[in-house]
C-alpha cells in the first residue's frame, strides 16, 4: 500500500457538433481541404465582430443541466490574450469568472458496481483554435508550419472537475461515462481520435491522511482513455518516486509516451503566459430565458448512468449487460423497443451477443441492419415457446440479417422448426444403436457423454433437434428413464 494518495482533476474540451462555428456562419467540417471553411470573421480580418451561435448556447445549457450544474442567469465572455499563429485574433473568446454553467456533479458506475461521484467545477463556452501542422524539412531547410483555419472558431465546451479522482482507472471510468452521456445528449461527436473530445488531467499526490494539495502537473491531451489512464498511473508513479527520494515536484506540463511508457516534460508552468483576461466588449452578456432553460431541462433524455441502474434493478439485466447496451443512444433505443415486446434479459443476450457477433462481418450496427427490434423479440418468443432450438435460432438470425424477413418466415423457408419428439425418437434410437460404447458410458453414469449425442443429433437433423429433447430421449432410450 502506497504512502501517497493521488489527487486528480480533469479538464475536458468538447467540440460541439453544431452546424456552424461559434461566432460566424462558417460550417463546421472535418477532413475537408484546408481553409475552405473560413470567412473574414474567423480569419480575424480588420473590423470584424463575433456573433454568438445560439445553438452553441443551447448545447452548453443541455450539458450543464445533465451535469446538474447551476445555470448562470447572466454569463459573460472574456478575451484570453496570447500570440500564436493558430489564434488569428491573438485572443481566444472564452469565459472567465462568470461561466454559463457553474457547480454540478456527475456520478459514474465502476466495473464492480460501486458509484463514483465527481464534482463539476464549471462548464464554459469558448472557441477552438485553428489547426497547426508542423512540416519537417522536406525541401532542404524548408521547415515550417501551416495553418488550417477550418477548425478555428469551432464551438467548445470546457468542463472542469474538482480534484475528486484518485486513480487512473477512475478517471477512465468517469470520462467514458461522461462521453456516453454527451453522446446521449447529441451535443458532440465525442471522437477522441478526431479530437472532438480532448482531456487533460491535473495530477498531484499527497501523503495518505493529508488534506493539503501537492504540486500538480498537467498531463496534456491524450487521444485515448486507455493512454490517459496509463499516463496518469505512470505520472503518479513518477511523482511517488521523486517524493520518496526526497525530491520536489515541479509544476509543469507533461506528456506520456504510450510506446515507451515514459513521462516527458513539455514546458514549465512557471513561464506561463499572463493572458490578460478582460470582458469581451464586442459581445453582450448571455442571459438565457428561464422558461427556455426549464424546457431544456424537461426535454432531457434518460441518461446512461441512471438508465443502467434501472436496467439492472427493474429489467433483470446484469451490470455488464447494462453497460454494453448503453454504449450508444441508438443501441439503447433498439434494445428498449425489443424489451418492450419480449423478455428483456433474453433480448439483451441476443442483441449484445449473437446479433452483434453476426453483424461484425458486414460492419453494421443492429439499428442499421435489416433486423428490427420486433424481429428480435419475435425470435426470443419462438425460442421460449420451443419452436426453434438455440442453434436453429442462430440460423434464423442469419437469415433475417440477409432478408429482413420475420423469424417465423425464415423458420418456414429454411425448415428450421424444432423436430417433434416422435420423429426425433427414431433418430435417437438409431444413434444409440450405432454407438454402443457411448451408450455404455452413459449407463456407467458419465453424463458428459450426452453432449456427444446432442452433437450427433444436431448433425443428423441439420440443427433442428431441440438439445433438451435430445438429452431426454437419449436417457429414455439408454437408461429406460
Amino acid at each position, binding site marked *: 500500500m502506497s504512502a501517497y494518495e493521488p489527487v486528480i482533476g480533469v479538464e475536458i474540451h468538447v467540440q460541439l457538433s453544431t452546424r456552424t462555428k461559434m461566432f460566424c456562419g462558417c460550417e463546421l467540417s472535418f477532413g475537408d481541404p484546408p481553409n475552405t471553411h473560413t470567412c473574414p470573421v474567423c480569419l480575424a480580418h480588420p473590423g*470584424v465582430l463575433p*456573433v454568438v451561435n445560439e445553438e452553441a448556447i443551447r448545447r452548453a445549457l443541455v450539458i450543464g443541466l445533465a451535469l446538474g450544474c447551476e445555470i448562470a442567469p447572466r454569463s459573460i465572455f472574456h478575451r484570453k490574450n496570447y*500570440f500564436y499563429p493558430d489564434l488569428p*485574433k*491573438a485572443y481566444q473568446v472564452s469565459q472567465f469568472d462568470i461561466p454559463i454553467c457553474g457547480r454540478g456533479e456527475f456520478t459514474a458506475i465502476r466495473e464492480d458496481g460501486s458509484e463514483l461521484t465527481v464534482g463539476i467545477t464549471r462548464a464554459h463556452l469558448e472557441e477552438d483554435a485553428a489547426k497547426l501542422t508542423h512540416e519537417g524539412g522536406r525541401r532542404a531547410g524548408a521547415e515550417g508550419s501551416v495553418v488550417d483555419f477550418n477548425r478555428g472558431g469551432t464551438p467548445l465546451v470546457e468542463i472542469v472537475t474538482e480534484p475528486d479522482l484518485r486513480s487512473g482507472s477512475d478517471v477512465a471510468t468517469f470520462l467514458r461515462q461522461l462521453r456516453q452521456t454527451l453522446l446521449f445528449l447529441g451535443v458532440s461527436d465525442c471522437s477522441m481520435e478526431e479530437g472532438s473530445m480532448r482531456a487533460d488531467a491535473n495530477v498531484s499526490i499527497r501523503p495518505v491522511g493529508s488534506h493539503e494539495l501537492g504540486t500538480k502537473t498537467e498531463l496534456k491531451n491524450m487521444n485515448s482513455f486507455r493512454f490517459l489512464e496509463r499516463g496518469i498511473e505512470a505520472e503518479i508513479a513518477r511523482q511517488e518516486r521523486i517524493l520518496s527520494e526526497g525530491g520536489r515536484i515541479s509544476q509543469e506540463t507533461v506528456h506520456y509516451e504510450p510506446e515507451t511508457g515514459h513521462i516527458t516534460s513539455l514546458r514549465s508552468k512557471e513561464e506561463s503566459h499572463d493572458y490578460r*483576461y478582460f470582458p469581451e*466588449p464586442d459581445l*453582450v452578456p448571455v442571459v438565457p430565458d428561464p422558461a427556455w432553460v426549464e424546457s431544456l431541462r424537461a426535454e432531457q433524455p434518460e441518461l446512461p448512468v441512471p438508465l443502467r441502474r434501472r436496467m439492472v434493478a427493474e429489467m433483470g439485466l446484469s451490470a455488464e449487460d447494462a453497460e454494453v447496451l448503453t454504449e450508444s443512444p441508438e443501441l439503447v433505443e433498439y434494445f428498449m423497443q425489443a424489451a418492450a415486446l419480449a423478455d428483456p434479459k433474453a433480448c439483451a443476450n441476443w442483441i449484445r451477443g449473437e446479433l452483434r457477433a453476426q453483424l461484425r462481418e458486414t460492419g453494421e450496427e443492429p439499428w442499421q441492419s435489416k433486423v428490427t427490434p420486433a424481429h428480435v423479440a419475435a425470435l426470443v418468443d419462438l425460442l421460449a415457446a420451443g419452436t426453434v432450438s438455440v442453434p436453429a435460432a442462430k440460423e434464423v438470425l442469419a437469415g433475417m440479417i440477409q432478408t429482413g424477413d420475420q423469424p417465423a418466415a425464415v423458420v418456414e423457408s429454411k425448415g428450421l422448426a424444432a423436430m417433434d419428439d416422435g420423429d426425433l425418437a427414431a433418430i435417437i434410437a438409431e444413434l444409440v444403436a450405432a454407438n454402443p460404447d457411448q451408450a455404455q458410458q452413459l449407463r456407467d453414469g458419465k453424463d458428459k457423454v450426452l453432449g456427444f449425442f446432442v452433437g450427433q443429433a444436431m448433425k443428423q437433423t441439420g440443427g433442428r433437434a431441440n438439445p433438451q429433447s435430445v438429452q431426454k430421449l437419449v436417457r429414455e432410450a439408454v437408461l429406460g428413464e
Partner: protein
Amino acid sequence: MSLRDLSAVEQIAALEAGETTSLELVDAHLAAVEADDVEAFLAIDAEGARARAREIDAMPSRPALGGVPIGIKDALSTRDVVTTSGSRMLEGFRPVYTATCVQRLQDAGAIVVGKTNMDEFAMGSSTENSAYKNTLNPWDHGRVPGGSSGGSAASVAQRQVPWSLGSDTGGSIRQPAALCGIVGMKPTYGAVSRYGLIAFASSLDQVGPFSRTVADSALLLKHMVGRDPMDSTSLDWPGEIALPTATDMSGLRVGVVEELMGEGIEPGVKAAIEASLRTMEDLGATVVPISLPTSLSGLATYYVLAPAECSSNLARFDGIRYGPSVDADNLLDQYEITRGDLFGPEVKRRIMLGTFALASGYYDQYYGRAQKVRTLMVQEFAQAFEQVDLLASPTSPSVAFPLGDRTADPYAMYLADVCTIPVSLAGVPAISIPCGLSDGLPVGLQLAGPAFSENRLFDAAHAIEQAIAFDTRPPGLAT
C-alpha cells in the same frame, strides 16, 4: 456658386429636379478630391465613383441619397478599395468586405469617392499620427484639422465632399468637426453597426457623420442606424431619425457643464460658447449650470480603458494573414519585427499602456478601477438628464493648433479631448456645431443628450445653426 457649395440635401434636391446628374456632381467633387489641397485623402476611387454615378443616373427613380458623393474614413472597411486605418501595417490592404454602415449608405445612393486620412488606428487628435501624411486645416494650412478623423473633417470643410463618415472613440468626430468649423455627430453607442470599423476601443467606438449643415448629418445618420446581425452590440434605433426643422428651443433645459467651462478652456473658445448660450436663451431655452464632478476623471479613465482594449484589438496585426510582413527566422522575431517596424510610436505607446493595465496583479488597480469610474460617470450623466434635456460645453478646449505643436507632448495632445471623452464614456450621443470664431478660427459647441436623443440634438443644433448662421466657408477657399 458651384455644385460643391450645395449641402447634400440641396444636391439631392437638384438631382430630383433634374438640374444636375450624379455624374456631374461626382466629377465636380472629384476634381477637388484629386487636387487635394489639404491632403485629406489617402485613396481615391474615381473610376468606381463614376461608374456608380452612371448606374444611379440610369435608374428610373433615384435612391434616397440621390447619388451624392461621400468621403469615408480609412478606418472603415471598403471592399476592394485600399483600407489602411492610417497605418503602414495595412499598406495596400484591399478588404474583402464592406462595413455595414458604408454598405447601407451605398445602398441608399451615396457614392464613395475615396478614403480619408486619419491618425493611425484612430489614435490621436491632430491626424499627425497618420503613417502617410499630415492633413491641413482648411482654415489655416499651418494648423491641424483635429483628429483622429481629420481627413473626413477637412474634406467636408474644403468642400471636396458635402459629407463624410468618421469614427469617434473619445472625440474623433466632434473635435475635428469643431476645429474645421463643420458639424460632427457621435451617435448613441450601439446606434450604428461597428461591423467593418477597424477597432480601436470596442466599447467606445462609434461611426458618425460630418457635414456642413445639421440637416445633412441627420439625413446621413438616418440611413445608417439600426440593428445589424453582424454586430451584437448594435441596437434597433427606436423610431426614425427625422430631418430637423426646429427654429427655437422653447421648453428645453440646457445644463452647462461647469467642470468643462473653467480652467484649460481658451478665453476665445469660452467667449464663443457663452455667446451661443445666450443665443439658446434667446431661442427659448432655459440655461442652467450643472456639475458633473467625475468628468474631471474622464481623461484618466479613458487612457486606461481605451489602451487596454486597443492592446487586444491590435494584436491581430502580425503580418501573417494580410498586410505587409517582415521576413524573420522564427515566429517570435516575425511578430516583433513586423509589429516593431510597422506600428507608429503613438500606437505602440497605447499598446504598451494597455498591456500594462491588463496585466495580472495590476488589473484591479487600473482596468478594474477605470471600469468603476466609468460606471459612476454613466450614473452621473443619467442623473444630469433627469434635471436637464441637454448638456452644453465646448467641444475642444482650444481652436486648431499649429502643426507640430503638440507632437512631442502626448499629454498636451490628449487634453484636446478633455471635453468629448466624458460623453464617450457615458455612451450617449453628442453633436458639435460651429458656433463662432476665435482669432479667425472656428469654435465648436458640443451638445449632448441622453441615449437615443439624436432627434432632440439635431433639432436644437438646427435652431442654433439658423440663429447663428455661421459661414462654413474657410476664408482661403476659392469660390
